[in-house]
């Protein structure tokens, strides 16, 4: 079974980049546009890893992460926060919400892929 990654991201361009990047290495990509959808798809598909944008309309990334991590069945899934807020303290907030890693936009697809592999390996 191929590795399944859930991308929660409201920007089409960013979703496409992640889709193309992850698809190119053979990962299966599931996409969610809102936080609610992200939580729902996480429950349905049980992905191997979640890339979580923080600035989402409605339910934001922190809250979506908290809800996913609150579900014991989903808790072991690593969540990498992807945010364009580079203010100090954002990383702290992300970790407090339960994220396992933190990446700021703009990210290098290559570096992000390395980070994803690192978390998949230590899962």
């Amino acid at each position, binding site marked *: 079974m191929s590795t399944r990654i859930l991308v929660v991201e409201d920007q089409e361009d960013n979703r496409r980049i992640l889709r193309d*990047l992850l698809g190119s290495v053979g990962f299966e990509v599931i996409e969610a546009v809102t936080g609610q959808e992200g939580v729902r798809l996480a429950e349905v598909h049980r992905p191997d890893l979640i890339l979580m944008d923080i600035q989402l309309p409605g339910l934001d990334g922190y809250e979506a992460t908290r809800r996913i991590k609150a579900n014991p069945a989903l808790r072991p899934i690593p969540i990498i926060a992807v945010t364009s807020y580079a203010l100090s303290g954002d990383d702290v907030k992300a970790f407090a919400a339960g994220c396992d890693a933190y990446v700021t936009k703009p990210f290098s697809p290559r570096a992000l892929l390395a980070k994803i592999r690192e978390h998949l390996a230590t899962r």
Partner: protein
Amino acid sequence: VKIRWLRGFSTFRAKIFWSVIPVILALLIFHAFMDLREHRRLVESEFTKRGLGMAASLGQGSELGVLAENRGLLESSISGIVGDPDVAYVFIHADDGRVLATGGKAVDDAVAPAIPTAGDRSTMTRVVARPVRIKDQKGIEFLAPIVSESVATPDELLLQPPGKAGGGPTQRRTIGFIRLGLSLESVEHHVLGLARLWVGITAVFFGISSVTIYLFSNRITRPIKQLTAHAQKIAEGELEQTIPVRSRDEIGRLGATFNTMAGALKENIDEKERVLRELQELNQTLEKRIHQRTAELEERTVALEDSLQEVQTLAEISRTVSSSLDLRQVLTTVAAHAVGRASADACGVFEFDPDRRAFHVVASHDLDGRFLEELEGTDLQPAAPVQIPELRNAPDARLRDCALRAGFRALLLVPFGGADARHSLVVLRRRPGTFSERVVGVLTALADQSKVAIENARLFRAVESQRLQLEQLSANLEHLYRLSTALQEPLSLRDQLGRVLDAARDVVRIDRFYIWVVTPDSEQLIALAGAGFAAEDARRLETVPIPLAEAGAMRLAFRDGVALVFNEGNPLPAELRLPDPWSSRPALRTSRFVVTPMIARGRTLGVLTADNKGSRRPIEARTVNMLQIFASHAAVAIDNARLFQEIDDKGRQLELASLHKSQFLANMSHELRTPLNAILGYTELILDRIYGEVPEAIREVLGHLDRSGRHLLGLINDVLDLSKIEAGAFTLSLAEYSMQDVVQTVATSVEPLAAEKGLRLKLDVPDDLPIGRGDERRLAQVLLNLLGNAIKFTEAGEVRVTVRTEVRSFRVSVVDTGPGIPPEHRERIFGEFQQIDASSTRKKGGTGLGLTIARRIVEMHGGRVAVDSVLGLGSTFTFTVPILVSGDGPRA
């Protein structure tokens, strides 16, 4: 023999001697030993050969004698060899061991004949040798068989195969044997002689080498000794010494150096001596002068003592006069003295009143009141002492009558007080007669003292009154000062002014105050604060502004900037009265009223009004002065308060604006990052061939796109950092870090840039740096910025990073060989958006924010950034940060 120069091992010469002699001795002894051994071996082998020969020939020669067992025959063959001095003994034995013949000088000492066994003998075909002891001396015993051979024919001999010749027992037979003992005494003797020779040689060599070493070491040490001796002399102060420099080797050079040193020392000492001589001369001169001065001083002291005595005498006389400031008492004393001195009966001191042209008595002695009453008003004012020896003949009838009535017959009057003399000392006597010159003189002196006393008293009164005035003034000023400082206190302005006015009422002698300020449109006067008014009146005044146009006297004072004073005799004119409803209020009407403008920084802010309605005291000039001072203080206070208010408002507005700006920048940074993510992300994916092969031309363009995007990201990050710094949101996250790692990481990341430009990147980082505490990411940012700049601006050469530890600080320097920074720009480059010139910004890129941020980060760590540069040679940027930044240390 105790040789002098071998004393001790410490002299140079002894060291040479003791290091060479053992080697020579050892060599000699070794050589002698080897030679002796070899010699002995040679002699012994020669000896052995000889012995073998002798034994063999004796064996052959004895064959017949043995066969015949003829002793005589045998002895004669022995006698041929016993003459040899080395032969100790000879025994000829029969085959069965019997001794057939003996010979030799040591036959008796020969060891018991070791007869060879029959078996030995049968195999004994040649001579054998074995060591023996003969008379405790070494010897060799040769054992030779005596063989009898039946003569074989030559044919038989020829037919015998080789090797079997003489082997047949039938042809050869051992019939006996010979023991020949040779003494090695002569060999030993010979060796002993040789050994003696070697001892001699060794002694001679030893002697020769000792002498050679002595001479050689002498040659070496002599110049050193000379140097030492000279150096000692120089040390003892004989600086004229010069060391003869003969050789050009190290010692010669040392000598020359000593000479130079001695020369320099001599100059130095000469100079010191010269200075010392000068100092001594100066000292002598000074001493002379001091003597001279001392003598002068003594003379003066004597003169001063004389003067002092004179002064003391004078002082004693006038002491009573100046001891008391009570003029009457002083003059009474003077009068009493005058009576005593003049041998008179009474005395009085009179003052002349120029207005009434009459005398009145100031002090008297033994004068009754009635006489004084009668005398009062007498017109008598001479310029010089006058005496009337017989009052019966006095020209002034009034004086004559009253004096005669009182029983006085003579009078002396001494005026005093200078040209406009107003006082006189009058002495009266019941006996007629002239007062002597001496008495006149004494009284004149007393009069002079009285003059001093009177003057003192006058001065004292004047001083006292001035002192009181000053005290009053000082008290008032202090009060005013306290009031003024109270105006600076941070209370609400209205309350403050009210309190101050209340406190000021007593000082300036005013019943009621009010401060009026003009509205910003200069249309109305508003009552700001007051004192002394009934609460209801105050409330009314404060709630209703007075239009300036109708404000009467207040308007005038406000307009003209002068104080107006109205008193009972100087009432407020009708046209300057306030209109209704104010003037109709009885509480406000008064005829004792002041209005003072309040001026600060050249602007009239309002007026201060004051009145004395309650006490009906007139308004004094002094009060007006104080009110003006007070009004100006109050004006300044009001002005300051308004300024503070203004500044406070501006500050709040600025703070808000700054907050908005920071929020805007943060938002903008976010909004810019999102599309930038797409740009950079797609670019990287394309370059990574996610979407298939990319033609080279497009790859190159994408490379530019990537760089530009990253540059834009750098700009956004810098702007964000700066906005955080400005908003105070920039904080350090402190943790332990390794400065080595920071330098290494940063160097690794800029290495490609340096390599691209052909620059050498050098790191000078000690291995033993301590672990630091600080914000590792931020410090790396600082170093990255400095290093990035250095690489960016350097076209050729190298860029070097040096880390050192100072007292509790890391000192990190980035040195480049770039164009350098002109001195006038060195501070400016740390400012925001600054590069040396606009063209360089275009050429080199960068926001010009990096250094500002770097400096801020370093300062937040409690460190400093500095730049040093030489135009055309390069620049050095150095920052120091405390190794351990404490948690409550410097922050944004």
